[in-house]
């Protein structure tokens, strides 16, 4: 198990908590909490070795816009591809913004 911690400038804290993804191979779990004002943090726990560079590149791109709501993400990765990582983080951000309430 490897852990990678990243942080980025951001806007005001996100509106609410969110959870996206599942435990299972090729997927990941994203736990989102509102972050501290002006700063987003991302902590990634991964079972796959040697993927820090890929993760950093993918997450850097997602958080390139410093006007996005501030979030604290905890990610548990089970070998997700970059495309899955992008979709799951986007899903959590949408839920936190109220676009996808998760109600069913």
């Amino acid at each position, binding site marked *: 198990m490897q852990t990678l911690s990243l942080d980025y400038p951001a806007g005001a804290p996100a509106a609410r908590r969110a959870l996206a993804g*599942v435990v299972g191979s090729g997927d990941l779990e994203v736990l989102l909490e509102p972050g501290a004002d002006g700063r987003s943090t991302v902590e990634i726990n991964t079972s796959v070795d040697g993927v820090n560079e890929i993760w950093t590149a993918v997450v850097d791109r997602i958080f390139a816009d410093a006007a996005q709501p501030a979030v604290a993400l905890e990610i548990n990765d089970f070998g997700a*591809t970059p495309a899955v990582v992008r*979709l799951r983080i986007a899903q959590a951000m949408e839920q936190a913004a109220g676009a996808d309430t998760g109600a069913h």
Partner: protein
Amino acid sequence: MDYSRHTAVPRPHDLVWIEPDALGEHIAPWALARVAAGQPVVVRRARRDAGRGLPVGVRGAHRGQREAARLEPGRWQALRTPESLAADGAWIEHPRAAAVAAIGAAAGAACLLNAGGWCWGVTGAVGFELATGEPVCHADSDLDVLIRAPERVPRAEARRLARALEALSAPCDAQIETPAGGVALADWAGAAKRVLVKSDAGPFLCADPWSESGSADADRRPSSVAESPSG
């Protein structure tokens, strides 16, 4: 492509035995050695462009070691589907059933899934080990199962099945093969409005993988993706 039904072509997770020279060039030497030693390759979920060959992956001896490749058209000699492995029930009196919880758990999974009338199969490390005898499973391997569902599975039913599988003696990672692509049972059993579908064209989020207008989500489908290492 819809892999929830029978197709004339190999489907993702099928194991195919091939001729060593059928993978073309640019293959890692370790992967070539595996195939030359008679190990099957696993069909991957990826775009099936004409002339590019069948997407397959070679499973290495080390954990997580995989090599993506393309198989020249028609260059396979034998094929095993996940369902045929389940039908064999090779986990019964398997010598490693005690050492590997995931193999031991297959009997319980079979009881549940057969009783529920599901069309299902064994994939992943357990499927590979049952098919080849190669000890690729380890103590904390998951039991990967595939459930073919050409017809819509109600979310309440998915929740009941997910809960039942949670009681097995090893973690069970179940994937539903829908007409739109593969969806994690845990995802469909959960509360999210949209679930992640793994299709040949890449992953996308979709509210209902059985809906004809899953195409309502068509704008969200990836237009192009790089080769993905897994199915």
